[in-house]
């Protein structure tokens, strides 16, 4: 008895255990779907987050009373920060390490280790008046007496005992002696420079009101010299002809693009653009006079955007405008592309004027600063206003953006003690400024393009390339591919389904249905490969035949039908109408053969021997070998079985008494079909088409192989397209994990997921309703 009870108990335990396990397994299906949805969302979300700026390290700086900080900088990993004061001293601070770790000659603990930048004798007791920054690490020091020195504060990592240490050093790319930038050695109140491996170009406005351009051309390469030795170079001095306006009012700011091609000279509210490319002459290329919001508004600052194409102009009303050269009918012109409003409506700002604009080194982000220390962060291309807030109490003495754009260094007055200077670092979380909803779905005006456009171009060979992520062309491509596929598949699949379900004899149906459904099992890679390597060249060669077939096939069918109708009854008995699909097979094959053999003849008659050339040359239609027509047919074949099976099921399961009733009332077979059967089955047919559409939208391999994968916006049937799915397949393996590109590809997958989710859910919903309806009939 006891064993029986325990056996019963263990059976009961097993039973409930099985129940739990199976329930868990069942729910796991739902869990999987939710997991996919949430994971995709989790990867996508960060691109829509706005920027965050948070204070990190604060170092109080002990400086002699009259010393002024002129510049600052930081290494890539934000471990070492430096500042340069007007005495020509560089101070390094350690941001992370403890005192024990810092052992190199520059650093002890978190205290600054300082040294004078003036290594040669010529700089005794000099005072710096300005430090000129460039897009690279190089900085130009200019002293009160007009001496100039090029320095390069650098960092390199040292690995010892498995720990990394950042070592600071200062290089003198052109040696430690003063550079003779002006032939007459005048002082240079305004100075700008840019350099590459072979050349350095300085543009300066001298104290005696000359605008000069000086080029240093290296015999070898500038980059190769880091030891501080003197290097051989040739100097070319040029004087730039000045409009009198400049001479009178003076120059406020000068910028030279990093590719050494343009100089922007701002005087008051006008910017003069000089071309530096020509060897013998510096040519005035254009003048930029922005239209300012009111009469008493004036320009206050200017900056170059990364990539050297755009210039940013900030004005006294707190607006920044972006300008770049655009090809117009009357040649290339500087145009205002967009403007940014740095004013905060909610807060009463004490000063609106933009005192400085700081740009990132590699991206198109920029920071604006006002005299009250109010900072705005924008991204130009996406027109995104990323952040705003108070980062300092007044215009800081020095401001720099960390090389990876993930931090800021601000040196300014200590808010607690006005006599003290304060070095404050901030961590910046701004990984995906270029992606906004607008940038993904609306026209964007990219640098160098004549007008705003939808462009998908995720990578390129060059470094200063700006990725262009518009989902419009690839979404369009998806819709286009699906549209042409459905155009081909829906008529064929539905007519086949109607015939199979309603007119076919059961015996034939038993053979035909599995055969057509077999097509669903064919791997799409095979359909795609046949489309790309067999169908596409074939269609290119016999283009007229393809178009003829669209007319000839129905005609031939009708002709066969009519001749069957006219046949004597004796023959009709032997070849009943129910065999129509079989009878039509030879007819269709024959028609196809005729169309193909007529094709060269037709081409010779109508299209001068080559339809393709005729299209391109005479009609001006671009023709790709792998085009929408090929995709339409190939993907049509992939979709036909999906639509066919479901539509056939829906029509076949229309209750027989409905059709019998209709036929009994005297309706013909066809009238019954149209008036009763199709009407009843229409939700099922709709859901079949929806399922087919879902499949066409998500199909990857066929589109990948049968189109040229060019992301263009063109409905032309003779051109290719790129779809969301194919785009993922092409670009995902190359996308860097966590980059905007990676996340946007996830977004594409998410869009596909949602698309098909809607189609499938709608289709399934309709189908369930239909099933209930049928069962109630």
């Amino acid at each position, binding site marked *: 008895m006891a064993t029986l009870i325990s056996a019963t108990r263990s059976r009961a335990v097993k039973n409930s255990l099985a129940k739990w396990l199976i329930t868990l397994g069942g729910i796991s299906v739902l869990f999987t779907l939710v997991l996919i949805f949430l994971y995709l969302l989790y990867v996508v979300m960060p691109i829509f987050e706005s920027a965050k700026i948070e204070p990190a390290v604060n170092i109080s700086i002990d400086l002699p009373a009259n010393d002024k900080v002129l510049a600052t900088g930081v290494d890539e990993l934000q471990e070492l920060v430096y500042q340069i004061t007007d005495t020509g001293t560089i101070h390094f601070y350690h941001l992370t390490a403890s005192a024990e770790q810092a052992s190199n000659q520059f650093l002890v603990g978190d205290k600054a280790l300082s040294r004078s930048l003036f290594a040669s004798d010529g700089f005794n007791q000099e005072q710096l008046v300005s430090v000129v920054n460039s897009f690279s690490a190089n900085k130009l020091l200019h002293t009160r007496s007009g001496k100039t020195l090029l320095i390069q504060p650098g960092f390199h990592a040292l690995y010892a005992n498995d720990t990394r240490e950042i070592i600071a050093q200062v290089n003198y790319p052109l040696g430690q002696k003063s550079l003779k930038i002006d032939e007459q050695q005048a002082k240079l109140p305004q100075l700008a420079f840019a350099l590459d491996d072979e050349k350095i170009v300085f543009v300066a406005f001298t104290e005696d009101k000359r605008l000069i351009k000086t080029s240093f051309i290296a015999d070898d390469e500038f980059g190769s010299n880091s030891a501080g030795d003197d290097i051989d170079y040739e100097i070319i001095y040029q004087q730039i002809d000045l409009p009198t306006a400049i001479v009178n009012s003076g120059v406020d700011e000068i910028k030279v693009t990093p590719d050494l091609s343009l100089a922007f000279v701002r005087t008051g509210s006008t910017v003069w653009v000089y071309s530096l490319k020509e060897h013998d002459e510096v040519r005035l290329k254009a003048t930029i006079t922005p239209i300012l919001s009111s009469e008493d508004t004036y320009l206050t600052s200017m900056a170059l955007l990364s990539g050297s194409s755009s210039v940013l102009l900030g004005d006294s009303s707190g607006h920044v405008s972006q300008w770049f050269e655009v090809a117009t009918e009357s040649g290339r012109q500087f145009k205002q592309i967009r403007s940014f409003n740095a004013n905060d409506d909610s807060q009463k700002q004490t000063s609106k004027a933009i005192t400085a604009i700081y740009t990132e080194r590699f991206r198109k982000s920029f920071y604006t600063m006002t005299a009250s220390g109010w900072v705005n962060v924008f991204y130009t291309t996406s027109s995104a206003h990323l952040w705003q807030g108070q980062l300092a109490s007044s215009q800081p003495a020095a401001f720099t953006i960390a090389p990876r754009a993930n931090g800021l260094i601000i040196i300014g007055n200590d808010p607690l003690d006005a006599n003290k200077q304060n070095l404050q670092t901030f961590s910046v979380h701004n990984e995906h400024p270029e992606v906004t909803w607008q940038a993904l779905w609306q026209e964007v005006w990219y640098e160098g393009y004549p007008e705003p456009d939808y462009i998908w171009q995720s990578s390129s060979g060059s470094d200063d390339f700006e990725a262009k992520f518009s989902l419009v062309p690839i979404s369009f491509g998806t819709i286009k591919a699906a549209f042409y596929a459905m155009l081909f598949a829906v008529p064929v699949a539905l007519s086949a389904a109607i015939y199979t379900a309603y007119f076919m004899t059961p015996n034939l149906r038993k053979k035909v249905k599995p055969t057509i459904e077999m097509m669903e099992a064919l*791997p799409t890679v095979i359909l795609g490969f046949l489309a790309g390597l067999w169908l596409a060249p074939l269609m290119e060669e016999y283009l007229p035949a393809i178009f003829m077939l669209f007319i000839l096939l129905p005609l031939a069918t009708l002709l066969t039908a009519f001749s069957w109708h006219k046949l004597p009854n004796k023959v009709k008995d032997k070849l009943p109408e129910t065999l129509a699909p079989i009878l039509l097979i030879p007819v269709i094959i024959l028609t196809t053969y005729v169309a193909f053999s007529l094709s060269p003849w037709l081409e010779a008659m109508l299209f001068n021997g080559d339809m393709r050339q005729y299209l391109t040359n005479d009609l001006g239609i671009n023709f790709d070998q792998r085009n929408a027509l090929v995709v339409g047919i190939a993907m049509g074949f992939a979709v036909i079985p999906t639509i066919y099976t479901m539509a056939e099921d829906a029509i076949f399961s229309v209750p027989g008494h409905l059709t019998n009733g209709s036929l009994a009332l005297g309706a013909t077979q066809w009238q019954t079909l149209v008036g009763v059967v199709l009407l009843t089955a229409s939700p099922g047919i709709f859901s079949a088409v929806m399922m087919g559409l879902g499949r066409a939208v998500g199909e990857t391999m066929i589109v990948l192989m049968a189109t040229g994968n060019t992301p263009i916006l063109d409905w032309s049937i003779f051109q290719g397209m790129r779809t969301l799915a194919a785009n993922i397949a092409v670009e995902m393996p190359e996308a860097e994990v966590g980059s905007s590109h990676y996340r946007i590809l996830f977004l594409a997958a998410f869009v596909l997921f949602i698309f098909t989710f809607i189609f499938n859910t709608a289709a399934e919903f309709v189908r369930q309703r239909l099933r209930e309806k049928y069962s109630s009939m």
Partner: protein
Amino acid sequence: MNKWFKSGAPWIWLSAAGVSISLISVLGLLWLIASRGLSYFWPSQLYQFDVLDKNGVKSVVIGEIYDREEIPVSQLAHLNLVLPPEQEVLERLLIKTGNRELVSLDFRWLLSHYIQKTETPKDLVVVERRTNGNFYGYIDSVVVDGKVVDSNQLTTLLARVENFQQQIDDLQKSDIGAINYQLERLRLKTRKYQLQNKLTASVQAEIDSEVVSLNQRYAKLEQELMGYREEISRDHLVMRAMDGQLVPINLEYILKVTFNNKLNFFEKLSTFFSQIGSFIIEDPREANTEGGVFPAIFGTVLMVLLMTVIVSPLGVIAAIYLHEYAGKNAFTSFLRIAVINLAGVPSIVYGVFGLGFFVYMVGGSLDQLFYSENLPSPTFGTPGVLWSSLTLAILTLPVVIVSTEEGLSRIPSEMRYGSLALGATKAETLWRIILPIASPAIMTGIILAIARAAGEVAPLMLVGVVKMAPNLPLDGNFPFLHLDRKFMHLGFHIYDVGFQSPNVEAARPLVFATALLLVSIIVALNMTAVSIRNRLREKYKMLEH
């Protein structure tokens, strides 16, 4: 006529045309793949053309006819051909001439107008080689160790080389491969001890001595290998090419020498089958454009098997839940919609999910936890066969669920009630009665899932498939099954060779052959599934009476 139109008959015929078109396209597609694929294996006739070109230069072209096309004479006006006026088209032949070391292109177009004489000489041979593709020409002489011998000996000499080649392959793949694998493991072991700060002098010494002994064995094997290499490259064959040039080909590089024109039908048939055989069991050569597809078959099968192991229990359990346990409520219809959606989500989305979730998130965490000695090079944090089979398991889950549920729904409820009435618990009824009866349906579902997975390419491109895998995921080195390795796949092979290879034209027949292989596997699987299902339906019908 009008009456006829009103009767609706034309429309019926038009809808019948839909059926016909679908049928023609299915069967035509299969026929196209089959004919193109099979002709790849059939030994083709070798031709010798005497050509007199438009400059009056005579030459000889030897090769296989690869393609023919007719072009209108009007397009050839620039050649100033002297033709009879009634002739409107000219035939143009695409000849595969091989001999890559002599001419840069494998193929050339030849206008039939220029051909003076076409012959099929009996002693023309095609030499299949390991590198540089085929060579077409005549055998001039066979040189053994510097001395010319009778060319009848060629077969024995080739067998000898083949023998050595086999030994070299064995040495390289199993013995030397194993040593390299062990050396790598020792390196990782050292690194692991280092990371854990457990690398004592004794451990280090032990590892070092193992390394030394392995290196010694390696040196010995390498010497053996060198010996074989010397032996294998002893002899060579001198071929006379179409321009009369004599070309020596070392036997080491020769796979097969065939006198295609001497073969009778049965010999051709046997060559045909041996070609099919070697296509299936050999490794690919020349950037996948020649040779066999064995690694791709192996990779596909292994991945699909792994997937089956994962998907079958999950799918069956979910189906049982849906049909036997779930109540008729909103949650169940939710679940059904989830199943339908899992079936409808584009396969590439699964690929993206698999890459992000399995590879980077799960795989990356596994690496951090268990394979830190390998970092920064990833072990499981990179696409591989495990992640591929997991991804495809999710993708094929609905196939198994739908098929199993259909099987369950066909089991008459009397059987359940009978079992329950006799005192069995629900679990026992399931295990003893329902599942055995439903097993053919489960089988059908699994076979359909396998067929689906075998043909799926898009997600695999993201989660583990490569064009050329140096090692199979299953080999003689512990732990034998390397789930982290990348693998080759038939479907991806088609895409890669057909679209990414440098010489698409030359590779096309191979792509058709691969496509044929894949289609046959999938069609066979599907037909099996369908026939099981049909037999099952008959059986259930009997049960109901």
